[in-house]
């Protein structure tokens, strides 16, 4: 059966100062095919997508669309041809309604009749099982609903190629199922789908074919159903890097962190308030909290780091109440934090690694009566770079000049070397290459083995199941019970991530830990 080639990319090259993001990439997507584009972070997937969508121009190479050669003038042109994009970090306007958002991406004449457009939106979204109210303001929608808006927008534009960039990273397992059903329906109707991901099991479940990118080049093409996840992983990372294996939990020691009835009302209109959180962490254990972004993780981190102050007794460290303590004091008492944003919170982008060491390690004897002992700071920075394998031109390089993985290693190293009692890490391997992710995991395990308590907040379920002795989920500011990982199934976790759990009373928590 001759399947029509919908999209064909040949010899695509795109260079940026300092790196070749795409180096002679070939890609073919057939009509009605669900095609995966695999690769780890930094492999060049996003750049390729921007080229296909017309946001940037390739330096060399050709694009063929339905058999005809193509030069894209921009996203509007791509849309006219039927190429639709669902972004990872959405391109929606929060202060506008669903209908207004979709109207903006349509040509002016089609968008003129607002009422007709609203009707169309309702019809199309119902048809594909993703009901939407066109009059709602986007800032009132959940993340899953916003993704629906992005998809419905493409459908209204009658896309024949739908590009989805890491769509499942913000969904609960159940929402992922709904999405897959929709995508299969679309594929049946002849729409081609380009599915960008690094989640191998999902690709095996959904996709007909897969192309693998590594460091800007195509390193493999396959039919995911016929190939194992290990083989695909090898294509993604090459043969040298060791893949992480399951970590054995240790027997935990005394209670270090006790969170008791933590309530936090956020003043951010788009934030999530924490309700009656209870949990305990012991020395020598890694505890994980799963959850889709926007369910209170950020607020929990801020409450633990001291960026947000809560009632004094709701957080105690080795018996000392620290709810009202500022970050500096908490650090002195042994709390270390690795935030989700490494540039622009964890590290100052425009400052050197030396300066960034001083940012949180100032309690390590670097400041004497207000004067900074520069040589001590430099020494500390050098030790981090050596001990944690941070690849950088020098310790005077700006934080922005490091790759995501190296900067994250630096930040983890900076905190770990302060020998904290408690380390709270939020999404530590997000956007990080596999080699660095492994190093970061090893660092966390080392800390645990040295007697610290580690709290790992992450969306990456693989990471959580791999590292944590105990796990739970956070949803809408409430915390599920924390149970031993060995007793937890992914379905159960998925339910908890969707909020389906009873409130964990303190007595239940201590039972689970016994």
């Amino acid at each position: 059966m001759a399947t029509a080639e919908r999209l064909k990319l040949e010899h695509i090259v795109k260079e940026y100062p300092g790196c070749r993001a795409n180096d002679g990439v070939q890609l073919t997507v057939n009509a009605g095919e669900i095609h995966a584009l695999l690769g780890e972070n930094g492999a060049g997937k996003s750049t390729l997508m921007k080229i296909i969508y017309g946001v940037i121009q390739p330096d060399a190479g050709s694009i063929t669309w339905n058999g005809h050669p193509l030069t894209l003038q921009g996203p509007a042109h791509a849309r006219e041809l039927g190429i639709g994009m669902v972004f990872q970090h959405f391109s929606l306007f929060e202060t506008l309604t669903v209908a207004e958002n979709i109207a903006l991406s349509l040509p002016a004449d089609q968008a003129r009749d607002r009422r007709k457009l609203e009707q169309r939106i309702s019809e199309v979204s119902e048809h594909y099982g993703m009901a939407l109210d066109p009059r709602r303001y986007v800032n009132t929608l959940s993340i899953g609903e916003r993704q629906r808006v992005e998809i419905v927008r493409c459908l209204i534009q009658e896309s024949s190629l739908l590009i989805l960039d890491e769509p499942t990273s913000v969904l609960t397992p159940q929402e992922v199922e709904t999405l897959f059903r929709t995508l299969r329906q679309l594929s049946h109707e002849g729409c081609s789908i380009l599915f960008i991901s690094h989640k191998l099991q999902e690709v095996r479940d959904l996709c007909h074919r897969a192309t693998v990118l590594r460091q800007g080049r195509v390193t493999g093409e396959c039919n995911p159903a016929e190939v194992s996840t290990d083989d695909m992983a090898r294509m993604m990372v090459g043969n040298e890097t060791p893949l992480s294996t399951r970590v054995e939990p240790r027997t935990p020691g005394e209670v270090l962190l006790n969170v008791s009835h933590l309530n936090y009302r956020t003043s951010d209109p788009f934030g999530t308030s924490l309700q009656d959180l209870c949990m305990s962490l012991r020395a020598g254990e890694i505890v994980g909290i799963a959850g889709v972004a926007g369910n209170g993780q950020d607020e929990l981190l801020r409450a633990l780091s001291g960026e947000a102050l809560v009632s004094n007794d709701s957080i105690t460290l080795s018996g000392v109440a620290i709810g009202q303590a500022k970050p500096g004091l908490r650090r002195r008492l042994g709390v270390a934090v690795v935030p989700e944003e490494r540039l622009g919170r964890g590290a100052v982008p425009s400052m050197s690694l030396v300066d960034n060491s001083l940012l949180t390690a100032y309690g390590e004897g670097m400041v004497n009566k207000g004067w900074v002992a520069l040589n001590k700071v430099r020494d500390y920075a050098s030790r981090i770079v050596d001990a944690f394998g941070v690849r950088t031109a020098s310790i005077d390089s700006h934080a922005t000049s490091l790759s995501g993985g190296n900067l994250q290693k630096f930040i983890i190293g900076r905190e770990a070397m302060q020998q904290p009692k408690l380390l709270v890490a939020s999404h530590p391997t997000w956007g990080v290459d596999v080699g660095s992710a492994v190093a970061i995991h090893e660092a966390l395990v080392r800390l645990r083995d040295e007697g610290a308590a580690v709290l790992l907040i992450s969306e990456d379920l693989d990471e959580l199941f791999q590292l944590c002795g105990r796990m739970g989920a956070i949803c809408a500011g409430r915390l599920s019970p924390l149970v031993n990982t060995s007793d937890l199934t992914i379905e159960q976790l998925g339910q908890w991530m969707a909020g389906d759990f009873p409130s964990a009373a303190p007595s239940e928590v201590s039972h689970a830990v016994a």
Partner: protein
Amino acid sequence: MDSVLITNVLAATVVAGTPLLLVALGELVCERSGVLNLGQEGMMLMGAVIGFIAATSTGSLSMGVLAAMLGGVLMAMLFALMAITLAANQYAAGLALTIFGIGLSSFVGAGFVGQSIDGFDKIAIPLLSDIPVIGQVLFNQDLLVYGSLLIFALVFCFLKYSRGGLVLRAVGESPEAANANGLKVLPVRYMAVAFGGAMAGLAGAYLSLAYTPMWTENMTAGRGWIALALVVFATWKPERVLLGAYLFGAASILHLVLQGLGWNSSTELLAMLPYVVTIIVLVLLSWNPARTRLNTPLSIGQPYRPSK
């Protein structure tokens, strides 16, 4: 208080508020696109001086007004070049525009200081101007006042109902998302800045051709800055700009009213009133940061560097 006094005060309030209204409407559109232009004083003064010189040289007030608007747009384009194309620090660029505009206007107008001109006269709209109080206040004003009200209506409808207004709001909230949607961020911002410049120029022309038909250095006396506060006060909504402009207008003529009523206080102390009122208003508005955040165009003040 008799009705003659009230009528006169209200009419004077409208007159005093008109330059503020014009500048603030212009800056509102500009800020809605995400660009913060601190150069209002500079643009207004240039508008005032160019309008005055054009009007005295050609003998035509309309030429003066047109020249003033053009002058404002040109000044704004200098700012746009730095803040939009070169993605420089918007605050510094705006300050540069102010300092440059103050200097250039004083320089260009040096030969005209103290000269006066026959400015715009009041034109009474038949029938409507006979309504007691309101008639005199709203329908017996000069052309530029009527113009300002018309411009207000246009801006209001544009923002609320037109596609252009939608595009403007989108660009102001998130230029990255706008770009991903295929909207042209830079041209939209350039046009918004140009509109702001035209309005500032027009406001300046109002000062030198209608309000006090003459040219003196620094005749704007900080109105440009007050207009900036006004836009924040109005939470970027045109109808509130209208209200606020007249409120501030009232504050600025209050010392005349009080003196008229027999209060004998130093002119200088009373002249402080509009500035003090501005601070009070700023406090009332800003002290709840959550509320401000909900209404501010999200991308305001950040330079946008499109990725190629």
